[in-house]
């Protein structure tokens, strides 16, 4: 059963009064709960938020399933989101994604690799087309101007040295 941490709970309480209506705080609270639950939003998370914010659970699940940045299935430590739309698609984003997935030993998108480190997903335009092909890990700033070699090296570095993760971004934003 997922329980919000004490710090998380008063973050949620403070968010409730920040906007004109408490509904507007759902997105930020979901970000916070997702980080506390290891990167994905489970039904328990939604239940916990529903009690903490006194908002009916279906409304929170509607928001959680509508937006792409909330994962409804477990993800690895590094959720690598490669952009494959229009310009990145032309500049080889899809081939890069296929190569990195083979390197990380993952067959399907959204699947967690055996060592629990990697999950790959194809995302839509991330708004950095001049530095195509590019990707985003979890909610970090973008990793840009990639080539196939750089992509493979990135996967190997993450597996061996581990990445510099400011993954607690939800504390800031």
């Amino acid at each position, binding site marked *: 059963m997922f329980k919000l941490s004490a710090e998380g709970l008063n973050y949620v309480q403070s968010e409730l009064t920040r906007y004109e209506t408490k509904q507007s705080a759902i997105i930020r609270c979901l970000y916070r709960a997702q980080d506390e639950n290891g990167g994905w939003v489970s*039904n328990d998370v*939604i239940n916990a938020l529903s009690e903490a914010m006194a908002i*009916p*659970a*279906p*409304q929170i699940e*509607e928001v959680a*399933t509508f937006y792409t940045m909330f994962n409804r299935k477990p993800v690895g430590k590094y959720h690598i989101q490669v952009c494959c739309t229009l310009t990145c698609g032309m500049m080889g984003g899809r081939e890069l994604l296929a190569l990195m997935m083979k390197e990380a030993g993952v067959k399907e998108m959204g699947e967690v690799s055996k060592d629990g480190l990697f999950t790959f997903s194809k995302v839509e335009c991330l708004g950095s087309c001049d530095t195509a092909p590019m990707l985003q890990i979890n909610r970090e700033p973008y990793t840009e101007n990639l080539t196939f070699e750089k992509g493979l090296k990135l996967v190997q570095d993450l597996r061996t040295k581990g990445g510099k993760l400011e993954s607690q971004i939800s504390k800031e934003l």
Partner: protein
Amino acid sequence: MSTNTIPCTINGKDVEVKEGSTIIEAMKANGVEIAHYCWHPGLSVAGVCRMCMVEIEGNPRLQIACNTQVVKGMKINNTSDKVKDAVKWTLDFHLINHPLDCPICDQAGECGLQDQYMHYGKYEPEMAEAKVKKHKVVDLGPRVVLDSERCILCSRCVRFTDEVSKTNELGIFNRGDRADISTFPGKPLDNNYSMNTVDICPVGALTSKDFRFRQRAWLLKEHQTVCTGCSTGCSTKVFFNKEGLFRVKPVYNEQVNGHWMCDIGRDVYKFVNKEARLFDAKVSGKGTGAGNGLGAEWILPKRAALKVGETLRANKGKGVALVLTGQHTVEEYDALLGFFKNDLGSDRVFHWVNTVGGGPESLEAFDGLLLRGDRNPNTAGLKESLQKFGIKTQWKELLEGLASGAITTVVVAGPENQTFFPDFKAKVVELSKAPRLIWLTAGKNLDLDNLTGDVTLIPLKSYLEKSGTFVNHAGLRQKIAKGLTIVPNALSLTEVAELFAGREIEAAESCSSIGVGRVQNEATTVRGSL
């Protein structure tokens, strides 16, 4: 809302429309046919199905009728080719991911997609790609089943649970054409108005578990009546055919229930079906000419009533008591009380008050929308009649009379819908202490059957087989009419009063009798309209 009207032209016809109403309301008011799925008079405007497209002069783009207000002198047209083509294509977009399971869908025959397809359809489908697969037969709650593939995401049910039942159980999850209606795991669709979502669902996505696969919509006839589930008196229509009754749906009634109806009222047809009814009068007990040795004799209700009438009138109604419930019509009360008061001169009439769970205060219970604690349709009517005949009695007087032997005969006009009388068994035991018991009942009952002693059971008509008036809690008098006959020989209380008084009753006027002999299949004889 000022009530002055605005002139405008719909399909070339000049009409006057209430100020501030949208085009679709104007068209509905003037009986103009317009295709629509997500708009519902009782809900907010969603404007998502895009079927109610109309062409407005001076506006190049087609506008949706459900959200566009009528302006003075507006020329609206929804029969032009541009509109027909738009609706045809929008309907095609509805159908490209729709599963072809009309054979197993309960909504077939009354489905919005089928009707519009026959009216606007493209008939040659051009979609050759794979359809989006979603989950079927989803258990949404105790009374509703969902089929996401049939759902056209018109959000009527979601708006219903947000605006009318205010229980927020349903939501549309995911995005784009992967979206589907669902409840949150652990919070099923389980409020007292959940079956309304089945009525307002224009397609077969939400179907009722009670009616699942039991009959086809086009083989059913309907009869408008008043629900006897509680004292609100909602207008409903009952669906039946020669095998019996199958379901109840609400009818729009501005004063009482609007467009809705509660789930308890949905089962109010079950006690009227053949299997729950008493067909013949049963006279049992010693010394009443019950000669067949079994101690009980099944005779025609008319003859049983006449015999009882003679004995009552013979000893001038001495020691006779009458028990009434709020389940019958005003006319029946007047007739029976008239007989007891005038012919027998006895004013020992008692009101059997049924409280479903909880004490007398549960009678005043009200769930905020429609359901009231008093589960009888005509308690107000009964009180009115008792007052008219000047009868002020307490239930304990009956008990004392029984105990002291002052009351020798008890005539009970039993409840039709026994499910709302939890104290039925106790009352049967209590009243059977009387030396002679005459129980008028519409439904069979095990306790009544195995009563020994001098008991006469006379079958009564149910509320669907007789006409009369109900008075709801607010004093609104609502008429019910005779729609069908399930037990041909049953009597209404008026007829019982006539027979008690010794007068003959004329033959029941003919009506399509149910459950007796072969009735031509209406669906085929009116083939033209199939």
